[in-house]
């Protein structure tokens, strides 16, 4: 009898242990929106940016909404806050707006710096921050001109490696941003994937950034 109880207990412990183990090792959903901080670097995964809902005139379209992001608080901001200084970047398709000019009420700014993220230690003194002036944007739209390159043959969009978005935030501080991927899960589909896959997986931003809260231009 005693033995049975001990066995039962042991089994119960084992089961509990197993259960606990399972919850610990369960991997995070690679397709879920996620923000993680490691030292000075903040990583954002799967920020949807007006994902495709259907076709209009043969062209894939979303509902036309932006996703607003605050680089100071590391949060995805509600669309109702769009007219505030509560956001720094807004994403919709391949368009990235900043909180300035025709896009928002704050006095933000941005430019695209060529080089690797780590090598941008201090923003060069002669840098010129641009603002959004619809239909032009501080982060220039168009393949090969701003942050991405689009390949018409494969119908795939990739961030150009070696492009850093230098951002003046809504409160006048500085941040550097590197866009890492444009597809769900942070992986660009293969060139041979179907158009259906390429369409449904696109418009999910994976990026990393460093925000300098003390107002200096050195990260």
């Amino acid at each position: 009898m005693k033995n049975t109880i001990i066995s039962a207990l042991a089994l119960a412990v084992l089961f509990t242990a197993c259960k606990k183990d399972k919850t610990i090792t369960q991997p995070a959903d690679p397709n879920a929106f996620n923000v993680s901080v490691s030292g000075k670097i903040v990583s954002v995964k799967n920020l949807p940016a007006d994902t495709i809902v259907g076709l209009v005139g043969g062209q894939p379209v979303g509902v036309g909404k932006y996703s607003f992001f605050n680089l100071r608080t590391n949060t995805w901001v509600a669309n109702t806050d769009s007219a505030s200084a509560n956001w720094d970047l807004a994403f919709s398709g391949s368009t990235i707006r900043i909180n300035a000019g025709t896009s928002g009420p704050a006095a933000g700014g941005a430019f695209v710096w060529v080089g690797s993220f780590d090598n941008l230690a201090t923003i060069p003194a002669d840098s010129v921050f641009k603002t959004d002036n619809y239909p032009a944007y501080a982060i220039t739209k168009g393949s090969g001109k701003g942050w991405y390159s689009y390949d018409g043959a494969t119908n795939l969009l990739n961030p150009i490696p070696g492009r850093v978005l230098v951002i003046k935030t809504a409160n006048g501080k500085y941040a550097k941003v590197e866009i890492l991927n444009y597809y769900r899960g942070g992986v660009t589909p293969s060139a041979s994937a179907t158009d259906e896959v390429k369409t449904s997986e696109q418009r999910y931003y994976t990026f990393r950034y460093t925000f300098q809260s003390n107002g200096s231009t050195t990260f």
Partner: protein
Amino acid sequence: MKPTVSLFIAAILTGSSVLAQGQRIYRPEDTTRAKELNEVVVTATRTERKLTNVAVPVKLIDQRTIQQAGSLRLRDILQEQAGLYMTNGFGAGVQMQGLNPDYTLIMVDGEPLVGRTAGVLDLNRVAVGNIRRIEIVKGPSSSLYGSEAMAGVINVITDNSFKKRLNTGLRYGFGNPDEGWALPGSRKSFDNLDFSLQGSTTIHKIGIQFFSNANYLDGVSFRPFSTERVPQPIWRLTNQLQLNYRISQRTKASFSIRHAYDHIKQEFAVSNNGAVTNSYGREANKDLNSSGTLVHQFSDKVKTALRLYATAYNGSQVLKFREIPDSVYDDEFRQHFYRAENQTDISWEKATLTLGAGYAVDQVNSTRYDEVSSRKQNTIGYGFAQYDWSPSEKFTVIAGIRYDDNKLFAAAVSPKLALRYTVSKKLSLKASAGRGFKAPDFRQLYLNFTNNAAGGYSVFGSIDAVKIIDELNRLGQIAEIREDYSKLKQLTPEYSTGLNAGGTYTPVEPLSITFNFFRNDIENLIDAREVAVRSNGTQIFSYINVKNAYTEGAEMEVRWEWKKFFQVNAGYQFLYTADKADLKKIRSKSVFTRDENGYSRLLERREYSGLPNRSRHMLNLKFCYDDQSFFATFRAIYRGKWVVSDADGNGLYNSHDEFADGFVLFNLSAGRQFKNGIRLQAGMDNALNYRDVNNLPNLPGRMFWLGAQFNLIH
């Protein structure tokens, strides 16, 4: 009709035509090695020369090789040659020394084939049943042949022995790309039928020879759950008639007319951003070539040949769309090319001087330019000279130059120098340097094409691009003018400077090693660039002379023979290519890629892959047993991986991009030659059933075939 045509007809009526090139007699009883030593080539110098005495890299493929492999089309046999790669878009093109198909001149009996689509001349257009041999000359050959001969020349020489004979050949092939082993008639299997009839005779000094071929290849459905058939079902017909008349001991006339017809049934779906358009219809291509030659031997020393050539190519495509019932896509392309040429050879004991001059008219009508009734025309006047000097048996020097005066573009001067030196019985060396060019084609000048099936982008030829874009801009339909717009101007020819150096080493008699190192510097390459963007976001492209590139590498062929029956052939090509603008960007440290975390870092020079769709390594291997009554072959073709798309988005191709897998094809054949003139053959192509739907859409799976040839009169 054009004056050239009248002249041409006059020449035919007076019986003054001849097939000038390639009057060599083929002896099947010769052993391979002996045969090779005696083989004569005409393409390298435009005069008959022993293969062993030619100073430029030349490869010969003889009739027996073609027959044993069971090849039906020119593509089939060329893909088994080391260093030649068959490209896939717009038919099967040939990539030679790493240069695109645009830059290899394809000739039948010394006269060029016309009718290229996007620069590609589909090698499946040429049936090989009546071919006596194929001569492949590598390296720039514009000094003799003018435009297009930038990478090299492939000259297909038809059989014209005019002996009394009549043979017929029949071949049936079948396969199933999914299982590889299915019997004909079962679901998803495909068939390939080929029939040919060939005969020749000589009546009252008039040699007559004809060839007729019909080929049908079923469409193959690769993709599961898809009715789309890749390749599409295709019919091909070829007819050729050749006449030869010896007017006197010194004068010979010949005439040839060749007609080829392809009919492709089309049914395919184009998916653009998830919107699928189902198209169905047909493509038809007609090719008509006629040539007349008159050769006169003035004396032992002086020989002259007058060659007249007229060719017409007509390609058309009619498509309807299931989703848009009233819309019809009707595409037509017609090209006419006429040429008159004289070549005179003056021979001394140790030297030959070749002088030539000619005039050509090239015309194109296409719905892709404007109206099909509107004709675009270029005229070319040219002259060439070549001095071929052999001060001793051991040493040959060839110097040549050609001048091409184009009405539409700048003139081109193409020099060439080649040397050959026999060091010893075991080793001979050769080296050559030459310049080649390719004139801009009509497409690059006049194209006016909007691809509504693929998103609505447009391509405008350089002549009208500025005018069209300015007009669109005036109408407020242009969102943006790109930087390259300012570079639009009159196109000039593309140039290459090629160096080839190599030789043949024969350590012991049945073993020989042929090697060659090459480098081609290509300047002024015409590239399609985005010049403007419409308000609706669609791109506008045009052509600009912008790119500079190079290809370099080494090729080697090893041949070994055992007791005249057994032969091994191994060929290898190593290739490096680069776009010089890419190299400059890498040097200036402005190109990045991503590390394993997806973070940007500088791209290193060693990671650069060069031009797309090229393999660094290509290998061909062939084992052949042939005792004149029984033969068997095993052929392997290897092509290393090649880059297909810029996956890391940095604008150039590197080791972090997407590559197509390297692959191996095994082809087998065996046959028996009977005394009564019957030959029975069987084979298996692509024995490993290798397929790659995305990167090799035209490669069907494993195919079995059975063939028979009968000599009806012999």
